[in-house]
Structure formats: C-alpha cells, structure tokens
C-alpha cells in the first residue's frame, strides 16, 4: 500500500521511516512525503491513482490540510483514496469540519503509532 504523508515538518519523514521500518522492509507499506498541501496535490497529479491512503496535517502554512482534503475528495479521480487528518489542536470544530469534508479518520498529535498501524492495517 502506498501512503502519502503531508506535513510541513520535514523530520516527520525520518520518524515515519523508522516507525514503519519493518513494514517498509517487508514491502507492506511504501511512503512518500510532501511538505505542503500544494506539493501534495502536485505529487498526486504526477502519480495518479497510485496512492490509496493520505495522511495529512491540518495546520500548515499556505494550503491547509482541510483545503487539501476538500480538493482531493471533490476533484480526485475515483476511487478516492482514504484520507486521514492529523492535527495538534484536537478541537471538535476541526473534527466536525474534517468529517464533513469526507475524512476517513481524525487523529491528534502526538500520534499514537500503534493505533495508526492498526488503522492502516484495517484500511488495507
């Protein structure tokens, strides 16, 4: 399964690669990283229908995660990928908004990676 992680913090890449090292080595998961909503969209356009799961931060400079979610859910060719939103502010307003826009899950930072792994497995 191919997963695209969208976050403005670049160290997220190293963290994911280590957290999922066994899965990556086993070839169960393939990760790609984008550091902004705009870059994520561009990446998805270059690799259409490849990524089945997108993990996106909400609070990013420029295009926000929610805007990215809206664009993916409305314009991306079918089948639409699974989109999970991550935010540092676990407020109900963001949660409701994300769900309304069609998010498949709403995760809060700090990420519980065991929980995430389970969610990814169930999404498979």
């Amino acid at each position, binding site marked *: 399964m191919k997963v695209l992680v969208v976050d403005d913090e670049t160290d997220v890449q190293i963290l994911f690669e280590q957290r999922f090292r066994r899965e990556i080595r086993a070839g169960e998961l393939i990760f790609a990283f984008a550091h902004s909503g705009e870059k994520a969209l561009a990446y998805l356009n270059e690799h259409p229908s490849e990524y089945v799961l997108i993990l996106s931060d909400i609070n990013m400079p420029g295009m926000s995660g929610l805007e990215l979610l809206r664009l993916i859910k409305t314009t991306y060719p079918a089948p639409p990928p699974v989109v999970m939103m991550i935010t540092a502010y676990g407020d109900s307003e963001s949660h409701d908004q994300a769900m309304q826009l069609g998010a498949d899950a709403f995760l809060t*930072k700090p990420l519980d990676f065991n929980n995430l792994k389970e969610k990814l497995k169930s999404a498979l």
Partner: protein
Amino acid sequence: MELASFLIVFFMVRYIRTSLQTAVRFPEWEKILVIVQYAASGLLAADVFLDSSITKWLWHILLLGMVGAAYLLKDFRPVRNVWLAVGPYILVSLFKDIARLIDSDFYKSISTVIEIAEVFTLVWLIATWVSTQRQQKALEKERLKRLQEEEQSRIIAGQNVMLEQLVAERTAELTRQKEELEQTLTELKATQDQLIQREKMASLGELTAGIAHEIQNPLNFVNNFSEVSVELIEELKEERRREDRDIELEEELLTDLTQNLQKITHHGKRADSIVKGMLQHSRTSTPQREPTDLNNLADEYLRLAYHGLRASDKSFNATLIMDFDEHLGKVSVVPQDMGRVLLNLFTNAFYATEQKRKTGLAGYQPTVQVSTKRLSDEQIEIRVRDNGCGIPKTVLNKIYQPFFTTKPTGQGTGLGLSLSYDIVTKGHGGALTVETEEGEFTEFIIQLPT
C-alpha cells in the same frame, strides 16, 4: 529811634517764638517772651506819653538782655546768631547815647557819622533779616522735601513688603503646582509602564497558543524519536542474538540511532529557545543589545504570530513567504524588543488579510511576506508585506499615535505600532516607514543601522 527798637524787639520775639516753637516746646519761655512783648509795647507807649530819657536806657537793656539771653542760654542755641543781625545796631545806638550823655559836644561833632552808621546798621539788620528769612525758607523747603522723600521711601518700603509677600505667595503657589505636576508626571510614568507591560502581556496572550503549538511539535518529536530509538535498540539486541548476524543491518540501526539522538537534541533545543524567547518577551528589566540573527528572529516570530492566530481562529489561513538575505549578518539589537516589533507587524499583517478575506473576495489568497536585505555596510532593512486591506489615507498619519486603533473596542490596545515606532527609532536609532494602497497591500519597512 524808639520805634526801631520796638520793631526790633517785636520781630525778634516773633522770630524766636516761631523758629523755636516755644508755645509747644518751651512753655516757660513762651510766657516770658509774651511778657517781653507786652513790656516792649508798654515801653513804646511810655515813650510816647512820657518825655523821659530813661526809656532810652530801658530799650538798651531790653535789647542787650534779649541778645545776651539768645547768645548764652542753651535753649536758645538755634537762634543764637540773632546777635549778628541786631548786634551792630545795639552797639551803635548804645555808643550814641553814651557819647551824648558823656560829652554832648563830641557827640554833636560826630552825630552825622553816627546817624549814618545807625542807618547802615538798620540796613544791615534788615538785609540780614531778609537773607535769614530766605535761608530759613530754603531750609524749610529742604526739610519738607526730605520729609516727602522719607514719606515716599516709607511708602515704597511698604509696597516692597507687600510685593515680597505677593512674590512669596506666588512662589508657594508655583511650588505647589510644580509638585502637583511632578506627582502627576510620576503617576503618568507609572501608568505608561503599566500600559507597556499590559501591551506586552496582551501580545504574550496572542502568542500563548502559538507558543503551545510551537512547543508541542518539538516535544512530539523528542518523544517519538526516543520511543523509536528504544525499538531500534531492541531490534539491534535481537539481531546480535542471532547466529547469522546481519552486520550491515546493525550498522544501519546504529546510524539511525545516532541520527535520532541528534534529532532529540535538535528538537529539545528548539523547544528550549521558544521558552527562552517567551520569557524574554515578558521580562520587564531593561534588556541588553546583543548581536542577533534577524533572519532567525523574523522566522520565529512569524511562526508564533501565525500559529497564535490559527489557534484562536481555526478558519484563518495564510501563505507565508520568507525571503531572507543570507548575507545579512548579525545585527546588534535588543532581541525581545525587536521581536515585539516584528510580532506586532506580523499580527497586524495577518489581521489586514483577514479583514480583506471577510469581504468575500473571490480567489483571494492571504499572503504575508517577510524579507531581509543588507542595504550597505552600515544599514539593513526588514520588510513586512501583506496583501490585505491596506491603510486608508485618512488615518495614515495617526497610526503611530498611542491608543489609536482601528480594531473594535477590546481587541486592540492601540499601543502596538506606537511602541514599535519608539523601539525602532528611539531604541535602535532606526526608521520605521510604511507604504500602502487601500484595498491592495501594506508594507512596513524597518531600517536599522549596523
């Protein structure tokens, strides 16, 4: 000649009485003088009615007595010189009568001379009298003048006292006013300090959410990298227990561990510097200038301002553009003060884009840009630009006034730009200028000497 004697006595008595003011000062002498006057009158009457030569001698005695008394007596000292006027006449007439008594022939031979002498003595007497009167008048005038002057100086002295009293009163009043003003000034200064402190706390409040977010991120990394490192060590241990150890994998795990520990340090320091910045921001003591990386400072505060606003308004969003001059070099500033200026400019910029976004403009992308540039060896500039609502010309000259704000009541202190202006100009000898077009953009330009 008796008439002349009478007149002499009469006027002499009068002269003595008026010049010595005997009626007031010497009542005894006054009585005697009045008696003398009556005696003279009686003597004159006797002369007219009695044809006797004795009156002649009585006149001589009277005159000599008066002149002698005037000359000898202490009380008559001021009129002592009366003898100068009367003396010649008395002597001549006495000589005439004695000469006539002793030798009438001799008298006849010199009678003409004596009569002429007598006339001269009378002329002398009158002349002396007149001149004395004149002198007396002049003296009297002088005395009056002196009295007047004394009176005047007395009045002036009185006025002086009054004036001095007035001056003292006014001085006391002015001193009181001065003290009141000083008191007011002290209170105003205290209030100003409080306001500045409140403004600092207000911007700290704006920052809190941003700071929480900024601290949360590095802390998450610290936790995550620590946890994953434990996993890596477990994996490493597992690998080492195996018969066919994969040395390459072990190397890779060790490299990752090193990298993780470096990441933990990096994010720990990041959180540390944010907390330090926050403490500096709220500190009240007079801060010191130090060589500061303004690119870093601008980056840090732009993030803080952005996340602060995002925390309070979830729908808020903006594109941040940072265009930093790599050759800016360190600039000697008070970091927390310059941080406040930047924070204030960023907050205003975000606020302006938010105002414009609320108008519902289609396709509007709020953008806030910060750029730094070295202008010369002695000068750098920082530009903070937003594509927000701009500043109307009508308020452009008021934006640095304390308490001027366009924000709704309770949302802005109106001190942000005023304090920023003071910090840049007075605090750092720089300049704060603005370029703006209503509805299009606003760009604040900080120029600092290096």
